[in-house]
């Protein structure tokens, strides 16, 4: 077995997943994006004409859309230097043993087999642009639950995909949704039939492992009437010297009475641009919950959205952002109340330190006809030093007079007295600060599956080490 090749000079001491293995991609479209690249990707996948057509339309739209000038600084992205498609293995593997050794080695370091043994209901893990590893418990199949890589999902369940793909996030939505639609590869496809409640969370692990490799995964989740699923996604990436682009699209449709929770912890290395469009539709009496943690990346722009289109629908967003040195987390949430008696709750927490910048950007929109809508937004910022920054950009639009919309925001610093109190019990300054920060984000971590909560606290400790004293 080969030893992992690591470039010591590239590895940040506080980024424990900053390694990469010496994998050999079997196919790549090279750097840059052209019409031919889009056609090649589609041909490689053996797609139907309608999908190729969609990709090409999106590509044309991508060319015409300017780079957004709000949010974070996107001017350094060099679209011509990015690999848009790399295919590491020829087929999806269905068991651990079938995986190529390099890929296995990477995941061994992330502890995936142990996690799987303990509690996974099914794993779809993404390595570069292709889903290569996939497993689904027999029980899920028996219940008619589909949990596949998006490429396979498209081949095996083309009707469901065609009916819903791009209906929640059309390619015209924004430049990066257009880019994703043009070059998407991988991601997850989940379908839960009426009345089926999936007890265990479905999990996918994502990982970028090639220089200048963009990840454009596409996830589609369809939860049928009265059904329930919890999908969990965690990301880590190796560190490289040039910038990487991650532009994903997630679409969720929850039909009447259904419920979907989507949990993400992202810890991209600090050279990654993380520009993700996440949107869900909640129909009558349906519930959508986004739990979104952003610890890594150079710049994240991500605002999980919920369109409450059916009467009595409910949406929740729990969001946490940690901005360290050189990082900008521009995150938030959107709730659009488009039907009567819909409710939403947005809880956003941010921490900034070492010159990091964290912002909340949110929208609550109560449309005409959404009588009796209720929305509450709570955003709390914790700023750890004088160099760091926190901003809040809430937008509230209310078109119904009986709507109840609340917005609360707090900004705080770690108090000298709190630190003194904890230190007087024997905790070091860094342990005391970590404890205060962990407590601050506890309303979010308590909603995470146990092993993610543990990982989240460990990541916070890593981030806090060396931040004081």
């Amino acid at each position: 077995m080969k030893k992992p090749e690591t470039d010591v000079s590239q590895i940040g001491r506080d980024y424990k997943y900053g390694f990469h293995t010496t994998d050999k991609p079997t196919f790549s479209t090279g750097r840059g994006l052209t019409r031919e690249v889009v056609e090649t990707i589609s041909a490689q996948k053996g797609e139907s004409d309608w999908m190729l057509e969609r990709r090409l339309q999106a590509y044309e739209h991508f060319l015409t859309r300017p780079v957004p000038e709000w949010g974070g600084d996107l001017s350094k992205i060099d679209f011509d230097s990015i690999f848009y498609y790399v295919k590491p293995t020829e087929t999806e593997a269905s068991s651990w043993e079938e995986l190529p050794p390099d890929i296995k080695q990477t995941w061994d370091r992330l502890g995936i087999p142990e996690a799987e043994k303990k509690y996974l209901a099914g794993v779809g893990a993404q390595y570069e642009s292709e889903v290569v590893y996939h497993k689904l418990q027999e029980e899920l199949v028996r219940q008619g639950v589909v949990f596949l890589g998006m490429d396979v999902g498209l081949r095996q369940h083309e009707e469901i995909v065609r009916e819903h793909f791009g209906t929640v996030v059309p390619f015209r939505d924004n430049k990066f949704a257009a880019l994703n639609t043009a070059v998407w590869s991988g991601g997850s496809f989940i379908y839960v039939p009426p009345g089926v409640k999936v007890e265990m969370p479905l999990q996918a692990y994502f990982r970028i492992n090639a220089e200048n490799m963009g990840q454009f995964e596409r996830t589609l989740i369809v939860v049928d009437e009265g059904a329930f699923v919890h999908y969990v996604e965690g990301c880590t990436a190796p560190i490289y010297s040039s910038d990487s682009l991650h532009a994903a699209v997630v679409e969720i449709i929850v039909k009447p009475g259904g419920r979907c929770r989507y949990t993400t912890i992202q810890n991209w290395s600090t050279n990654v641009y993380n520009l993700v469009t996440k949107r869900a539709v909640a129909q009558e009496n349906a519930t959508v919950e986004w739990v979104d943690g952003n610890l890594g990346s150079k710049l994240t722009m991500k605002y999980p959205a919920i369109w409450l289109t059916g009467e009595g629908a409910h949406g929740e967003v729990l969001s946490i952002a940690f901005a360290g040195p050189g990082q900008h987390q521009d995150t938030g949430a959107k709730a659009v109340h488009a039907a009567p008696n819909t409710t939403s709750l947005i809880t956003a927490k941010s921490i900034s330190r070492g010159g990091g910048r964290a912002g909340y950007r949110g929208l609550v929109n109560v449309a005409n006809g959404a009588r009796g809508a209720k929305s509450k937004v709570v955003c709390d910022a914790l700023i750890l030093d004088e160099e760091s920054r926190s901003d809040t950009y809430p937008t509230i639009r209310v078109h119904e007079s009986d709507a109840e919309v609340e917005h609360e925001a707090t900004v705080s610093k770690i108090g000298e007295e709190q630190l003194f109190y904890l230190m007087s019990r024997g905790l070091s300054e860094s342990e005391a600060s970590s404890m205060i920060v962990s407590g601050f984000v506890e309303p979010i971590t308590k909603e995470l599956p146990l092993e993610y909560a543990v990982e989240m606290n460990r990541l916070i400790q890593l981030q806090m080490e060396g931040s004081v004293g």
Partner: protein
Amino acid sequence: MALLEIRDLHVALSDGSEIVKGIDLSVEGGEVHAIMGPNGSGKSTLAHALMGHPAYQITSGDVLLGGKSLLELGPDERAQQGLFLAFQYPYAIPGVTVTSFLRSAINALRKARAGGEDDPIPIPEFRKQLAAATERLKVPRELLGRYLNDGFSGGEKKRIEILQLALLHPRLAVLDETDSGLDIDALKTIAGGVSDLIGPELGAIVITHYQRILNYIRPDFVHVFAGGRFVAEGGPELAEQLESEGYDAYLPEASSGDR
């Protein structure tokens, strides 16, 4: 040498004003020393300065615990040496449960005692100690699952302070106005709990305005603190005298506000 030695201690605020103007004190293991004084006399300043609060400067003198000077040590290192301060106004740490905090604090002290190597307390051992201490101090079990001091009543906070004292096993405890805000039943339980802990392994300084806590934690020595100095010293009878006669005899001028 005594367990705790305070030698000619002077403490000033950052603006230079001197609050503690030279005190000497020796505390042996198993001894209880009461420091009594009027409001604003600087009793809390003394307590915080001993623990190493950054706002208070020790301008001269020395403090030794077990023969080792504490002056160059941070609050965490002083705690690791065996010093404990029960706060008059404990701070809230939202999101951190009492149980989780206690375990972290115990483990921080164990790590220091193991020379910097992690030496976490085994969970069954922790549960056993916690159960015994909560029972003795009548701490409601539900309090352990709540966030530390977050929305606690005054009495609940004091109970949790003494629970920490019981579980962290310091050598010397400073109790800063632990009796304030307690009703008589709570005072009895809490002070009784402290009294049970006093022994060869633990000496205590009880800072108080009133004599009543001393009915339950019997002092060996009483020091009257006013104007930044000890102005009278004696046995338990001095506390009773203060209770009946007040501090007027020790106040040559008007008190300058609570510190």
